[in-house]
């Protein structure tokens, strides 16, 4: 045996017997045929579900607790079984042969004194793991039968035979508020469109708008420039709009001055305010 134990595939899964549902679309047709053939072979070996299942059955002949089972003996039993199958010209699935190879390897390791040079798990560790796997499978089988033996719904316990359905009904609730009512009345009586109160902002230039505008323009203002030149087009004619735009722009320049982006100056009261980009 030259293969390191870690590479020994001792538990290659074989499909369990669930005919007709083996439909992995990605699989090649030939592959399916091979697998079908393998399934048939397993049935030939008394319908065991793979080598582990067979090992578990063989272990029962030892009549001891699985924890104390002799893996060495089990390996011998398995190898004898495989030999017998060969004599009977029963073709074994690859997994059975792989397991046989692995057990033969394990057996030789168990019989030889441990090699201190050898890396990886010891033969005892491998044997212990196999024993653990058998015990775990056994435990799950017992758990399954205990589960199936419980008082199952529809067999020992029953639900209400004539459950009463919940009747579902739908009700429409119409909604209208006082505002709707007044709006409707106003519409009818005056053809006015009633509307909830909202501040009319048509003539207002906001500080946000001014900030936006001044930020864009200030780059060009290396020299002192009149604040009034920064007002948006079309806002200077109407006094109300001019007032709003001037106030917003002034507030924006104060903000930008605070940020250190520009400077402002005014020669005297009511004289024009001029601004320029802050020189670097």
């Amino acid at each position, binding site marked *: 045996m030259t293969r390191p134990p870690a590479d020994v595939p001792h538990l290659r899964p074989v499909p369990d017997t669930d005919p007709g549902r083996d439909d992995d679309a990605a699989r090649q047709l030939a592959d399916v045929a091979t697998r079908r053939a393998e399934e048939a072979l397993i049935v030939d070996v008394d319908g065991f579900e793979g080598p582990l299942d067979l090992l578990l059955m063989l272990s029962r002949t030892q009549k001891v607790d699985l924890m104390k089972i002799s893996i060495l003996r089990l390996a011998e039993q398995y190898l004898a079984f495989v030999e017998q199958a060969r004599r009977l010209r029963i073709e074994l699935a690859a997994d059975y042969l792989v397991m046989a190879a692995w057990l033969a390897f394990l057996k030789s390791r168990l019989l030889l004194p441990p090699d201190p040079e050898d890396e990886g798990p010891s033969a005892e560790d491998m044997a212990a793991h196999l024993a653990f796997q058998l015990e775990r499978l056994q435990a799950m089988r017992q758990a399954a039968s205990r589960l199936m033996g419980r008082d199952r719904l529809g067999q020992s316990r*029953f639900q209400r035979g004539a459950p009463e359905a*919940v009747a579902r009904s739908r009700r429409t609730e119409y909604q209208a508020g006082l505002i709707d009512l*007044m709006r409707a009345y106003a519409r*009818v009586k005056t053809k*006015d469109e009633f509307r909830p*109160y909202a501040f009319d902002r048509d003539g207002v230039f906001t500080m946000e708008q001014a900030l936006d505008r001044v930020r864009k323009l200030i780059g060009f203002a290396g020299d002192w420039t009149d604040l009034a030149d920064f007002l948006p087009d079309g806002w200077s004619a109407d006094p109300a709009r001019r007032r709003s735009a001037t106030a917003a722009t002034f507030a924006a320049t104060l903000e930008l001055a605070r940020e250190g982006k520009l400077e402002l100056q005014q020669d005297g009261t009511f004289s024009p305010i001029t601004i320029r980009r802050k020189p670097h």
Partner: protein
Amino acid sequence: MEDAEDKVEDETQGSSFPPPPLEAQERMVEALLFASAEPLSVRAMAERLPRGCDPAEAVRALAARYSGRGVVLERVGEGWAFRTAPDLSFLMQTETVETRRLSRAATETLAIIAYHQPVTRAEIEEIRGVAVSRGTLDQLIEMGWVRVGRRRQTPGRPATFVVTEGFLDHFGLESARDLPGLSELRAAGLLESRPDGPLAPLASAAEEEDTGEETGAIDGDLFEDD
């Protein structure tokens, strides 16, 4: 009837197995009735209970035990079945409430009734300028917001419509008199009126289309009927 028969049969078999005590029989009947998809007759129960049982007696005991509970044992034809107690049938219904806005026609009709009550259908139509469909009025009446009032003492004695307590409740009004008048609405700036301030322009073409036919007067004769 059949109980008697059963007993006779039982006696012929001898007393090898005495029947279970009544409480045990009651449990069995309870389980049978619970699990059965159909009402079970006493005979059907007897067929499934151990020999010598008296399901009629067990059913009586069980019915007494369930009396006043959330489920009750009811006689259904020849059989017995558990049913939800009648007073709890509301639990077996779920109601999904869908809220929908009142249609424009209904809202306008409702508003006219509220402002002009008592008002006849002809008057509503005159104010709205369109016919009022029977359905709209029916809907408002069904919702409990409008009811038929006294007949008008005019030729033809037409029925009038008035709003209800339910209407006042829903809209949070003490009385229909609390409805604000149009002039109040306008004074409070709650009505779109053509602007007079300097900050006006910008009315879009679309808006004008809606509101261009600005009306002159809002009549002072609101609630003339009250």
